C-alpha cells in the first residue's frame, strides 16, 4: 500500500517531466495564439497592432488555402489507403510458413529507418529524375516517353514516396496483430469448409480492426505534418503545398507571422480532433 510519504515522493518524481512538457506546450502555443491576432511582419514594419480575427479570415480566404487542404487530403488519404491495404496483404503473406521469414521481415521494415531527407533525395534523383532516373530508363526500355514525375504527377509521386516510408510501419503493426490471432479458430473455419475469402472477411479482418484503427490514427497524425519530403522534392510547387507547408511558408519564407500563426492554430485544432480519437483507444487499453 502506498503511504502518504511515497505519494509525495511519487509526485516529486513526476514533476520534472510534467513541468517541462507543460512549458513546452503552453509557452509557444500562447505565443502563437498571441501573434495570430496581430499584424506582425518582422521584415516590413514589425508589430503593426491588433487585428482581431483578420488573420484567421485571411488564411482561409486566401487562394492558396483550399488547394493546400486538397493536397493535404490527397496525400493523407492516398498514403493511408496504400499502406493499410498493402499492409494487410503483406502482413498476411508474412504470417504464412516460408523459408527465411526473418530476413524478409528485415527487408520489408528497412525503409522506416531511412531518414526522410535521404528517402526524398534518393527517390527524387535516382528514381524519378526524367533523364537519369531508373524509372526513365524503365519507361524507355518499353519505348515510352519518360515521365517528369515530380512536376507532371507531383502529388502521386509524393504519395508514392511517403507510402514507401510508412508501409513498413503498417505492416509491422498488422503482422504483430495477426500473430496474436488464435489459429485454431481459422482451422475450425477451414474444416467447416469456409472458403479463404470468407475466412479473411469474418475472422482475420474483424480481428485486425483495432490494429487498423491504430495504424490509421497514428499515421494520420504523422502524415498531417510531413515536411522534409516536400521540402527536398518540390518545395511546395506543382500543387504539393500541404497545409503544413503553407504555414511554414507564411511564417519563415514570407515572414507574415500573424497569418502563419492563425494557420498554425487551425493545424493545432485539426490535430487535436484526431488526437481525441486516438486517446480514446489508447486510454481504453490503459484500463485493461
Amino acid at each position, binding site marked *: 500500500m502506498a503511504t502518504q510519504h511515497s505519494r509525495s515522493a511519487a509526485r516529486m518524481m513526476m514533476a520534472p517531466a510534467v513541468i517541462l512538457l507543460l512549458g513546452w506546450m503552453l509557452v509557444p502555443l500562447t505565443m502563437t495564439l498571441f501573434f495570430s491576432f496581430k499584424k506582425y511582419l518582422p521584415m516590413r514594419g514589425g508589430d503593426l497592432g491588433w487585428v482581431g480575427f483578420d488573420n484567421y479570415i485571411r488564411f482561409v480566404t486566401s487562394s492558396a488555402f483550399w488547394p493546400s487542404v486538397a493536397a493535404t487530403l490527397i496525400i493523407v488519404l492516398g498514403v493511408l489507403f496504400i499502406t493499410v491495404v498493402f499492409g494487410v496483404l503483406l502482413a498476411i503473406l508474412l504470417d504464412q510458413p516460408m523459408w527465411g521469414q526473418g530476413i524478409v521481415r528485415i527487408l520489408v*521494415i528497412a*525503409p522506416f529507418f531511412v531518414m*526522410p531527407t535521404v528517402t526524398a533525395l534518393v527517390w527524387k534523383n535516382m*528514381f524519378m529524375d526524367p533523364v537519369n532516373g531508373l524509372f526513365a530508363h524503365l519507361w524507355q526500355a518499353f519505348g515510352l516517353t519518360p515521365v517528369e514525375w515530380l512536376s507532371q504527377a507531383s502529388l502521386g509521386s509524393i504519395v508514392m514516396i511517403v507510402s514507401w516510408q510508412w508501409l513498413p510501419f503498417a505492416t509491422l503493426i498488422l503482422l504483430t496483430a495477426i500473430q496474436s490471432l488464435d489459429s485454431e479458430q481459422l482451422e475450425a473455419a477451414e474444416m467447416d469448409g469456409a472458403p479463404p475469402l470468407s475466412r479473411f472477411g469474418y475472422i482475420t479482418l474483424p480481428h485486425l480492426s483495432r490494429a487498423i484503427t491504430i495504424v490509421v490514427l497514428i499515421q494520420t497524425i504523422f502524415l498531417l505534418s510531413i515536411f*522534409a519530403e516536400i521540402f527536398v522534392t518540390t518545395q511546395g510547387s506543382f500543387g504539393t503545398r500541404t497545409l503544413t507547408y503553407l504555414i511554414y511558408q507564411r511564417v519563415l519564407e514570407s515572414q507574415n507571422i500573424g497569418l502563419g500563426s492563425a494557420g498554425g492554430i487551425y493545424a493545432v485544432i485539426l490535430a487535436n480532433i484526431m488526437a481525441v480519437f486516438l486517446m480514446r483507444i489508447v486510454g481504453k487499453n490503459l484500463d485493461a
Partner: protein
Amino acid sequence: MARSVTTQRKLVNTIAAWSIGFLIFFPILWTILTSFKTEATAIADPPVFLAFNWTLENYEVVLERSNYARFLWNSIFIAGGSTLLGLIIAIPAAWSMAFVPSRRTKDILLWMLSTKMLPAVGVLYPIYLIFIKMGLLDSRIGLTVVIMLINLPIIVWMLYTYFREIPGEILEAARMDGATLKSEILYVLTPMAVPGIASTLLLNFILAWNEAFWTLNLTAAKAAPLTAFIASYSSPEGLFYAKLSAASTMAIAPILILGWFSQKQLVRGLTFGAVK
C-alpha cells in the same frame, strides 16, 4: 502452429514474400550499390547493376570535402544527448506512475501523449524567436532540448508500459525481507527494468536521428546533423549520384542496423503500448 502445409505451398509463399521484400528494399540496395560506382557509371544508360568496377572513391571524397565528421558528430550528439536527457527525466516519472498510481495517473499519461500531437509547424515561429533571443539558433544544445521534448511523451509511455509489467508481488516480498526503498530500487527493480530501458533508448535514438523538421529549421552550418547535411545535396550544383549515395549510405547505415534490432520495440513504442 499446428497447421501443416505442403512444401509446394511453402515454396510459393517464399518466392512471393522474397520478391516483394526485394522490391521494397530495392531503393536502399540501389543507393548502396550506386555509392560504389564512379559518377559516370552511376548515370550510365542502360543502368549497370553489379558488373562495374567497385570503388571507394566517393566515400573518400565525401569524407574529405564536406566536413562529414562534424555532421556525424552533431547527429550523434543530438540523438544521443536528447535520448539520455529524456531518459533521466522520464525514468522517475514513469516509475512513479507505474508503482504509485493515483487517480490522475491515466489523465496525466494521456495529456502527455497529447503534447506529442502538437503540430510542429504551429509553434515554429515562437520556438524560432525563443532560440534567437537565447542565442540557441544553430546550436547543438538547443536542438538537443527540443528533440528531447518532442520525444519525451514516447519515452515516458514506453517506460511506463514496461514498468507496469514488473509484478508488484516481488516488491512486497523484498519489503517483507526488510529492503529499504533505496535497496528496493537498486537491487530489485533496476535489474528487471533494464531491458525496457534499453529498448526505449534504442527506439528514441532512432527517432531522434531521423527527425527532420526542427533539424532543418533550427540549424545552419554549425549544428546541422546528417538530416540537414543530406538535404543540402538537393541543390542542383551539388548533385552527384554516386557521392549523394555514399553520403546517404553513411547516414542511414548505423540506424538500419540499430533499427533491425528494435523491430519489436518499435511496435510497442509507436503505438504507445496499444499493440504489443
